[in-house]
């Protein structure tokens, strides 16, 4: 069920790196209850879009509204509601998994932080390794910890940039399970991926980003996975 309250609204969003145009006039509306998967090849502009949505980067042009407010005005309050899983894990190798979560969790108003940390570590299967230094973790374990960090403050908007990177089959299923429990009418999510199998099933909407432009947007209930796959191939090549 969708309540049609725009959480994010990108209007003519443009980002240029020197002479390179990474995003070229993106228009996208994300309502509560939506989970949008943006598909695109490498260099399509997916990461740039998510970084702008996460307020890590300012757009060159265009606006991004958060709950109806310009992103500049929303600022710190908006950040409290955003969870972001990126390529980079944002982890300190000389801190333990628990210390990493305590550091990031300490920046939010989280009640019973230690209890929440244990819950998240257990959810990602790292409870027994919580007191180990992150420097000794594999790429997959770091990604699991990254997922725990993103969920720690119980965000209402989740931004995921290729979240399956480095995850084995069990960990991928764990993430799917977390995302399924995350999806409800009060929350929204945007995921970027180039993998059709991983992105389609969880989504309420699918989009194709190609050379900085949204070339296709539809509800998943209106298009089958096979048809979408063909459309993707036609657009991206």
């Amino acid at each position, binding site marked *: 069920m969708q309540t049609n309250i725009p959480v994010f609204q990108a209007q003519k969003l443009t980002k240029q790196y020197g002479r390179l145009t990474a995003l070229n006039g993106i228009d996208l509306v994300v309502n509560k209850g939506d989970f949008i998967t943006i598909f695109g090849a490498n260099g399509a502009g997916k990461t740039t879009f998510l970084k702008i949505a996460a*307020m890590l980067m300012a757009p060159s042009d265009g606006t991004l509204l958060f709950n109806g407010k310009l992103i500049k005005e929303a600022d*710190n309050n908006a950040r409290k509601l955003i969870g972001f899983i990126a390529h980079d894990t944002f982890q300190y190798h000389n801190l333990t998994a628990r210390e990493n979560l305590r*550091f990031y969790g300490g*920046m939010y*108003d989280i009640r019973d932080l230690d209890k929440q940390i244990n819950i998240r570590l257990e959810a990602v299967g790292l409870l027994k390794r919580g007191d180990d230094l992150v420097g000794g973790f594999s790429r997959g374990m770091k990604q699991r910890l990254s997922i725990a960090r993103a969920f720690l403050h119980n965000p209402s908007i989740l931004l995921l940039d290729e979240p399956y990177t480095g995850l084995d089959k069990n960990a991928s299923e764990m993430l799917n399970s977390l995302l399924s429990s995350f999806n409800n009418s009060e929350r929204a999510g945007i995921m970027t991926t180039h993998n059709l199998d991983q992105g389609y099933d969880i989504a309420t909407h699918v989009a194709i980003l190609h050379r900085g432009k949204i070339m296709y947007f539809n509800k998943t209930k209106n298009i089958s996975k096979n048809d979408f796959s063909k459309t993707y191939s036609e657009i991206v090549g």
Partner: protein
Amino acid sequence: MTYLNQIFGIIKKDITTELRAKEAVTAMLVFGLMVIVIFNFAFNLSSQEQITITPGLLWVAFIFAGILGLNHSFSAEHENNCLQGMMLTPMPRSAIYIGKLATSSIFMFISEIFMLFFFIWLFDVRFTGKWPHLFLVMFLGTIGYCIVGTLFSAIAVGTRVRVFLLPILQFPIVIPVIIASVEATAVLLEEDAAIGYFDWLKILLSFNIIFFTVCVLLFDYILEE
């Protein structure tokens, strides 16, 4: 979560990682001690020359060692893009700046204490009865140096030439801090310590207040870009 708690969170994190890695303080200390040893071999000073030259040598050792610590300050955040991780949180950007400034100053000050006693032992200089005055100069000089250095460290960290860029950007700006610190230290070695000491301290304090305000305001824009 109060603003102060967020700053203390960064300080606690930096001190914990430093206690485990022992990178910043060790590098500053080893480098600083080597500079002092080289100066000791290079200069054969009379007692009058000691008063005029040693304060400068001491502060050159401090600032050369300090640049290593400042270079390390944000490069540690650059690994795994932890700086962006902090920027994702609702913490104001200025809290990141103040937290990093505090840890850089603490690490540099600790190194300076060891360097100071080594310097006194090698050069046989006397600060008898003037230790509080000397520590106050070191405290204000170190903070002034790190106020500018922390900002430029954040600018330089995203570039390929950060090791060269930081001193090139920083040294011209901190010249007033270095001059005031050297002169205030020199005054302490003379007979009548009261003359001029507080004037140099006022310069240090004014520099710190002005540049702290400017750097806090600029830090938002630097992270944005």
